[in-house]
């Protein structure tokens, strides 16, 4: 129940195309859903995040779509650029008993070809 399932495992798009990564969860106690971008040898960096009472959030070329009833959320990267090539992780935050943690998906390796 603590899992976040992410797909696809890898994705190749052409420059200027749309990249779409999907995630699903079961635990209704999750209350915050961030997306992280990770380059090789670096730690994850927060890209964009959404709360479950919002269905969509857009920041520049990045959009999160959130479907609470389906327990699914997705990241859309518009006008994908070679510099977007990285591994993307969806995550979900749970706060219980004075503690909190992020539960991450397994990641999607995005390659944007020039």
């Amino acid at each position, binding site marked *: 129940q603590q899992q976040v399932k992410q797909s696809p495992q890898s994705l190749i798009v052409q420059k200027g195309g749309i990249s779409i990564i999907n995630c699903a969860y079961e635990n209704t106690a999750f209350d915050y859903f961030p997306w992280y971008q990770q380059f090789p040898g670096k730690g994850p960096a*927060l890209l964009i995040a959404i709360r479950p009472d919002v269905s969509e959030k857009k920041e520049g070329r990045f959009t999160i779509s959130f479907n609470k009833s389906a327990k699914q959320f997705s990241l859309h990267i518009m006008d994908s650029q070679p510099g977007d090539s990285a591994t993307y992780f969806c995550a979900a935050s749970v*706060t219980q008993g004075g503690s*909190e943690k992020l539960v991450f*998906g397994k990641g999607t390796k995005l390659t944007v070809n020039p």
Partner: protein
Amino acid sequence: GAGVSQSPRYKVAKRGQDVALRCDPISGHVSLFWYQQALGQGPEFLTYFQNEAQLDKSGLPSDRFFAERPEGSVSTLKIQRTQQEDSAVYLCASRRWAGPYGYTFGSGTRLTVV
């Protein structure tokens, strides 16, 4: 400092050795987390501190793993009698206040047990 600093960046340990991994969070950040990231996987929660109090250690894989943050700033993750399955990147993250927002991750320590 400007970011979360982790040292060493790389550590090779012989099986059975003890190791200590250091995390210097952003100055003034109250919350500190340790995550373990196996190769090709998403980070997995290990433990959470609020100031010097360790509020959650439920993710520590075994009693060989120990974390401390005695003065509420620098934290050390210690692994005793290292095993090959301990090989991973160990990530530290910090945040100014409680609540799921605004994590900053360090670049991690890559531990290889041979």
